């Protein structure tokens, strides 16, 4: 049985000024799955993941054609881009907590969307931090600056911050590339746990990570989606020679 699609990408092309970064991407991203994007540096993984919540809008000279549907509704149509970003949360490659307290970092999102009650905010902050598996480490220092946390803690705080607005989708662009193996393991464990409630799209350069956590994998090369399918299948019997070369490390 085919899964319900969270995102449907139809003939997506994207240009940065004259440079075409995405070429004719067609793909279905299933709900409550972990979908991994892999491929060599500069192939357009970040570009694609940022198109899913229109973070590309902020980039000068970025043009996109084709369409992206979220729950069968175009994200370029009659939709409030802030509401889109509330539904489609994002965790960035480098942890980027705001220069404010741990509490305020997590409360920023809900406050943005109009929640004022102190009680409600306390509840949301605690729940988000618990869901991001960092509550025990920070519960005694909620008033401390978020910048005093370790890199791994900062990244989990950023995940908590993304969860605080109750998104449907979590986009993660190499969330563990700046972290040590222990923090990485914690985040992978967390991502698998979050799968039940969220659709997750993750960019990774780590093949093991893709096999460990993802259900679907897409392999990109020079802006094209070369191969896309079940993760086990991609990593055991890749159809495309270039994909095989890449995952076996023979890519040159």
């Amino acid at each position, binding site marked *: 049985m085919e899964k319900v699609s969270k995102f449907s990408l139809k003939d997506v092309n994207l240009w940065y000024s004259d440079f075409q970064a995405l070429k004719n991407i067609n793909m279905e991203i299933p709900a409550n799955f972990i979908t991994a994007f892999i491929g060599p540096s500069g192939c357009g993984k970040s570009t694609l993941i940022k198109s899913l*919540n229109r*973070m590309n809008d*902020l980039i000068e000279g970025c043009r996109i054609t084709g369409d992206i549907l979220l729950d069968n509704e175009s994200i370029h149509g009659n939709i409030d881009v*802030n509401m889109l970003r*509330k539904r489609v949360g994002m965790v960035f490659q480098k942890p980027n*907590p705001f220069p*404010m307290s741990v509490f305020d970092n997590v409360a920023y999102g809900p406050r943005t969307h109009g929640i004022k009650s102190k009680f409600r905010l306390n509840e949301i902050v605690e729940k988000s931090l618990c869901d991001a598996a960092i509550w025990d480490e920070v519960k005694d220092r909620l008033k401390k600056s978020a910048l005093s946390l370790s890199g791994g803690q900062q990244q989990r705080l*950023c995940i908590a*911050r*993304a969860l605080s607005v109750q998104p449907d989708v979590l986009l993660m662009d190499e969330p563990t590339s700046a972290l040590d193996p222990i923090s990485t393991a914690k985040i992978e464990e967390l991502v698998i746990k979050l799968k039940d409630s969220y659709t997750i799209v993750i960019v990774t350069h780590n093949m093991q990570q893709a096999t460990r956590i993802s259900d679907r994998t897409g392999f990109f090369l020079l802006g094209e989606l070369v191969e896309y399918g079940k993760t086990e299948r991609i990593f055991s019997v890749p159809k495309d020679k270039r994909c095989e070369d890449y995952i076996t490390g023979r890519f040159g």
Partner: protein
Amino acid sequence: MKRKKPFDFIFFLLTWLSIGVTVAVFTLVVGYVLINGVPYISPSLFALESTALNPSLFPALMGTLMIVGLSLILAVPLGIFSAIYLVEYARRGSRFVKIVRLTTETLAGIPSIVYGLFGFIFFGVFLGWGLSLMSGAFTVSIMILPLIMRATEESLRAVPDTYREGSFGLGAGRLRTVVRIVLPAATPGILAGIILAIGRIIGETAAIIFTLGNVARMPNNLFDSGRTLSAHMYTLANEGTHPGEAHATAAVLLLVVILINALSSWIARFVKAS
């Protein structure tokens, strides 16, 4: 061993010499002003009225504070909002931004006497404000506008884009992102710019004498003339009848600047903590 790296040693000597000369010059100037000025600081120097026999600096002190306050009220919001527009709203690297930047840079380089002349003709004569607090404050605020704009622009630009991305990524709009995330992060830099501007106002003489005038009394209202500490000092030194009081005024001027700097850094720390 040491012989192997002669350049290291020469470089070390150069930096050491430079800091030595800098500290010496600074100490000399401050020491000179304080030694010659402090002995003449007396209660009569702060008398409400300034007369030919007792050149009290009190009216000038008040005049300085009023000019500083008024021109900051005019220039700070304008400068900060303009910089916010340039950095956060205008298309980055657009021709408009470049032209505005070139203009502010040019304005920052114009000698203050030119501002004085413009202020005198435009505010004083054309608008009929005469020699007054208004003419003075407007002129000086135009003078410090580029300073505040530049400082704000630079500190906004120094705020990493990752903060903005984090905020937009949560569904916050541009206004909220600027007010809640970018501005707080940029505040110390903006304050530093304001301090610099205050220093520039306090030290200004030429443009002030042209627009505020130089009468030895406190302005009674916005359209009244007055003088500032630096103009007061200039006048005393020029007349040559009260050299001691001139030095005392210089010492007070110095103290005021130090006080304002201390106050500003205290405010900066307070803002950062909250």
